[in-house]
């Protein structure tokens, strides 16, 4: 499905603050894999997702999705294959536009847009059905501005937009980090449901180790720009937070796991 091979990415090359964000990253996902990604700040989690999404070009390496080499594709062209939800709830939706306009944009992801006018009634019915399914009371508010929604509602809507046209790959970049714990839980439950329903191949970055263990069939840990730990199946199910912390201490040379990861538990 997704194949990342020998990918390198550095920022501020040639300056004293050069940051080697990705150092020989290799990852191969099978169809239907739901992978959670953990790691400390600056480990390269978001950078890896952005490299896949095409936010920037990588220095070296190759990225293929479903057999297509997308390494040189600009961001908008890769969108044909990829659904994304960002950490910032404001980034995934157009706040000044209506819910139905946002969904209509999403329904046309990867399609050539034309001068066809309007949103069909059939599409509207589809939107209402899908919004009902979210169970956030948005189904009667097709003509509300997205800017009026709460952060949780916006993330749920973004998730719906990312998946309304089934993507080959779903990228979730700490999409619940900006939400309060209760809303975060709800959005994660919706995520789980949507991913299972459509059998979506998914990469989910999280800083919450419990969530990383609870969700998905595979877990990877990143450190200093590479993947240092990759578990799946039964082994992953039997993981405990303490195992991950131990692993983390081991790779970070005995230093204590960073505050953020600790607090998350």
């Amino acid at each position, binding site marked *: 499905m997704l194949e990342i091979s020998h990918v390198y990415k550095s920022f501020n090359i040639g300056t004293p603050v050069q940051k080697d964000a990705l150092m020989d990253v290799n990852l191969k996902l099978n169809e239907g894999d739901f992978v959670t990604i953990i790691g400390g700040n600056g480990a390269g989690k978001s950078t890896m997702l952005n490299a896949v*999404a095409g936010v920037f070009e990588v220095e070296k390496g190759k990225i293929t999705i479903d057999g297509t080499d997308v390494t040189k594709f600009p961001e*908008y062209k890769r969108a044909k294959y990829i659904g994304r939800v960002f950490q910032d709830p404001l980034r995934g939706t*157009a706040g000044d536009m209506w819910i139905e*306009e946002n969904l209509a944009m999403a329904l046309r992801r990867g399609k050539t847009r034309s001068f*066809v006018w309007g949103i069909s009634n059939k599409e509207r019915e589809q939107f209402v059905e899908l919004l009902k399914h979210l169970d956030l009371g948005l189904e009667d508010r097709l003509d509300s501005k997205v800017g009026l929604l709460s952060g949780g509602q916006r993330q749920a809507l973004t998730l719906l937009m990312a998946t309304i046209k089934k993507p080959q790959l779903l990228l979730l970049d700490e999409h619940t980090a900006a939400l309060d714990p209760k809303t975060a839980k709800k959005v994660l439950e919706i995520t789980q449901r949507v991913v299972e329903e459509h059998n979506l191949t998914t990469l989910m970055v999280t800083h919450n180790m419990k969530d990383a263990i609870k969700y998905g069939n595979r877990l990877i840990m990143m450190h200093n720009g590479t993947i240092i730990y990759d578990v799946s199946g039964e082994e992953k199910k039997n993981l405990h937070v303490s195992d991950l912390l131990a692993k983390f201490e081991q790779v970070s040379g005995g230093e204590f796991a960073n505050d953020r990861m600790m607090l998350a538990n």
Partner: protein
Amino acid sequence: MEIVSWLWNIQSGATLGVIWGIMGLGLYLTYRVLNYADLTVDGSLTLGGAISAVYVAAGVQPIVAILLATFGGMMAGLVTGLLHTKLRIPDLLAGILTQFALYTVNLRIMGKANFGLLNQTTIFSQLKDLGIPSKWVGLIVGLVFVVILIILVYCFFGTEIGCALRATGNNPDMVKAMGGNTKVYIMLGLIVGNGLVAMSGGMLAQYQGYADINMGVGTIVIGLASIMIGEVLFSKRTYFHRLAGVIIGSVVYRIIIAIVLRISMNSNFIVKITADDMKLITAIIVIIALVAPDMKDRFLSKFAKEGK
């Protein structure tokens, strides 16, 4: 009789407001919808005027001359768009550079700084020949254009491409994530926006009977004044309201100017106000329109507190 002459002053202000309002629609597209402060407009308005005047003088059908002027403006928008998206020049600078270059282009087109259209056939003179009173042709032609353009722009906003263009101004990250090439939409917005600005300039040249190298100076500020007056007076509910608001704003602006000029004509202020003082007055109007919504909110919240 005094009152009648006042009304004619206001009517001619309204006519100018409607014709300049087409420029307002173009600027609305770039400034408000696309969120792009496009300074090309000062040059593309003059470009429209120059093209229209030269073709009318050459005996081309006046309406065709206006369409050619529109096309010229679209090309100016394309240049700014390419400078910004392909060469990655910041938006303000890209517009300023095109505007600056257009000064030369406009002079070359006209061959002189002021190109008169005395006794030439214009779209207005053609209507006059059909028997419409000469004092009303300007307003009638302007309104016909404005109604058609508002309908076209409104329909455009509703299309898939129009929707993506609006989203580009609102949240480019989202558009890219949804497979839209934001660069294309920015270019499209600049092309259509500057086309409308040049169309306005083209009509203006025929209406006033000349094109002048300086006719576009301050276009961006006048356009902003129209947009903001429209927003203060008119609700932002639907795009029909917003687009009509731009025209109303433009008309109100011109009426204010007409009244100021009229008053100063008959009175003895310490300083005699002339047409040359309009730029300062316009700047003050824009400042008031910019600050008014904020002031209103503050006043209302203070009022609410004291009410308790």
